C-alpha cells in the first residue's frame, strides 16, 4: 500500500493579511506559512495506516522553495519520502491546473490511496482532492470525519453533511479529503527530526510529471485573481449601557423596532 498525502502551505489562520500595492497578492513578509490545518489530519490518517498496514507514505506539495520546509516536517512526522513540485513553470495555475499536476504526480508514484485536506484555508475551493480523484478515475469521499480500513482495499468512512453524517463504503484506490475531528495530529519527535534529514526529498518539474507546463500552468489558467480587497469596514457600533436588565431591554427593543430582526 502506497499513500500519497497532498499538502499545501498556507498563511497561518492567526496571520494578519496585508494586500500588495498591485492589489493582486498578499505581502509575504508579514505572513507565517504553515501546513494547511486540514492537511495535517490527512497526514495523521496516513501515518496511522502506516502503523496498521506498513503502508509507504509519500508527501507531495506544489509551490515555491519554502515548501521544502513543510515536506521536511512531514518526513520528521513519519513520511517515507517527499516530492516537491517546485518548478516555477508550474506556478500560477488555477485549481483545475493544480489538480492535473497533482494527479500526474500520484500516477507517477503509483499510489493506491490519496489523502488531503477537505479545503485549503487560503483559496477555499475544496476542489483539488475531488478533482484529482476524477482525473485518476477513482472514487472520492470528501469531508471525512471518521475512517476505518477493514483491509488495505476497503474502508468505511463517515462524511459530515448538514445536520448529520453519511456512512460510506469506499473501494481503493480512492481519494479521501479530511475534516477536522478525523484524528489528533501528532508532533514530530526528536528522533523523527534526525531521521528526516536522511530521507529522500525530490524535486519534480513539468517534464518529470510528463506535462507540458503551458497546458497546466499560468498560461492555461481559466480562473485568475484580478483584485484583492480588504473586507468592507463595518459602521461604528454602540455600547449599550445600564445594568444587565436595562441592556437586555434596550438591545431587544433595537433589534425589534430599528432592525426588524425579531
Amino acid at each position: 500500500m502506497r499513500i500519497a498525502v497532498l499538502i499545501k502551505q498556507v498563511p497561518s489562520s492567526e496571520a494578519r493579511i496585508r494586500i500588495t500595492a498591485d492589489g493582486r497578492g498578499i505581502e509575504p513578509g508579514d505572513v507565517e506559512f504553515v501546513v494547511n490545518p486540514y492537511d495535517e489530519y490527512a497526514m495523521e490518517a496516513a501515518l496511522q495506516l502506516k502503523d496498521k498496514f506498513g503502508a509507504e507514505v509519500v508527501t507531495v506539495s506544489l509551490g515555491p522553495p519554502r515548501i521544502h520546509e513543510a515536506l521536511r516536517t512531514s518526513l520528521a512526522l513519519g513520511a517515507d519520502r517527499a516530492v516537491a513540485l517546485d518548478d516555477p513553470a508550474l506556478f500560477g495555475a488555477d485549481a483545475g491546473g493544480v489538480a492535473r499536476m497533482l494527479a500526474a504526480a500520484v500516477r507517477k508514484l503509483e499510489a493506491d490511496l490519496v489523502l488531503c485536506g477537505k479545503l485549503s484555508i487560503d483559496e477555499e475551493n475544496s476542489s483539488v482532492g475531488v478533482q484529482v480523484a476524477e482525473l485518476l478515475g477513482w472514487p472520492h469521499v470528501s469531508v471525512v470525519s471518521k475512517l476505518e480500513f477493514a483491509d488495505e482495499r476497503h474502508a468505511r468512512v463517515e462524511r459530515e453533511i448538514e445536520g448529520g453524517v453519511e456512512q460510506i463504503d469506499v473501494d481503493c484506490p480512492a481519494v479521501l479529503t479530511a475534516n477536522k475531528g478525523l484524528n489528533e495530529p501528532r508532533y514530530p519527535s526528536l528522533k523523527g527530526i534526525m531521521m528526516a534529514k536522511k530521507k529522500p526529498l525530490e524535486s519534480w518539474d513539468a517534464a518529470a510529471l510528463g506535462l507540458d507546463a503551458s497546458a497546466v500552468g499560468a498560461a492555461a489558467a481559466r480562473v485568475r485573481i484580478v483584485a484583492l480587497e480588504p473586507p468592507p469596514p463595518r459602521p461604528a457600533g454602540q455600547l449599550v449601557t445600564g445594568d444587565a436588565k436595562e441592556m437586555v431591554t434596550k438591545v431587544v427593543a433595537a433589534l425589534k423596532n430599528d432592525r426588524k430582526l425579531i
Partner: protein
Amino acid sequence: MSNQRTILVFAEQRDGKLKRSVLECLALARELAGSGGGSIHAVLLGAGVASLAGELKEHGASRIHLADSETFRLPTNETYVAALAAVCAESGSPLVLFPASAMGRDLAPRLAARIDAAFVAECLSLSTRAEGYTAKKSMLGGKVFATLDISGAGPVVVTMKPGAHAASPAPAAGEVAALSPVAVDARARIVGLAAGGGDGVDLQEADVVVSGGRGLKGPENFHLVESLAKAIGGAVGASRAIVDAGWVAHHHQVGQTGVTVNPKLYIACGISGAIQHLAGMRGSGCIVAINKDPEAPIFKVADYGLVGDAFEILPLLTEEIRRVREAS
C-alpha cells in the same frame, strides 16, 4: 440539441425538500441570462421528488431535467455526477450553478473535472463580462475579498455561497424532461445516514446565529447559548477555542477553520474575537456582542455591544426575546 445560452442549476434536495439556496441560484441564473433570452434549466435528482418541479417552475426554470428513481434516492457522487454530465452534454450549457452546500461541494468540482470546465467555489457574486464571467469570493476565511476573471473556451461550474443572492419567484411555463438513469457501478456507496447535530438550524443557511466562546467557562454552561438560539429560532455556533477544548462538535465552529457565516443577526456570547473568528462572521448583517472585557476585539465589529456578565445577561435576553416573540 445544443443551446449555448442555457444555464443549468443543480436543484439540490434532501428528504424531498429543496435547499433554499437552489432558489437563490435560480434567481441569479435569471439575472445572468438577462436580456440575452437565455433559458434556465434545473437538474432534479432523487426518489419521489417529481412534485418539486412545481417550485422550480415558480422560480423560473423553463425545463426540469428529472431523474426520479431509487437509483437517485441517496446522493451517491459517482451516480449524480454521471447524470449531471449527461445533462451538460445534452444541453451544451456554458454555465452550471450549484449551492455551496455539503452536496454541492462534493459534486461540483468532480463534474467540472469531468466536463473540463473552469471551476470557482463559494462565490458571493457572479456576473457576465464580454469574454466570460467575473466572480467575487471571500478568501482566507474572510480576511480578503477576491475578484476573479473566468475566461477561455469551455464550460464554467460555480458553487454559490448560500444567502449571497436573494431568491425571488418568477413563474415560468416549465416542462419536465425525464432523464434516464445512467448505470454507474459506484465504488463509494452511501450505506447509512446518522443524525448528528441535526438538533437545530443549518449554520450556513441560518438567518440568526448565536455563538458561544470561552467566556462561558465550561461545557456545562453552553446550554445558555442553545436556549437563546432556540428562543430566537437561530443556529448554534461556537468559537474555535471551545471546539478545540471539546465542549461542542466541530460542525458548530464559526471562523476560518470552521464555517464562514453571514446571517442577518449574529449574537456572540463570551467570545473575545480572535482574528480568524472575526473574519468568519464580520459579514453578518447585525452583530450583537456580549463580553465582560470592554477591550475585547469583538466589540470593534459589533453593532450593539453589551459589556457584562454573560451568565447574568443570557437568561434575561432569552426570556425577553421569548416574551417579545410571543407578544408579536
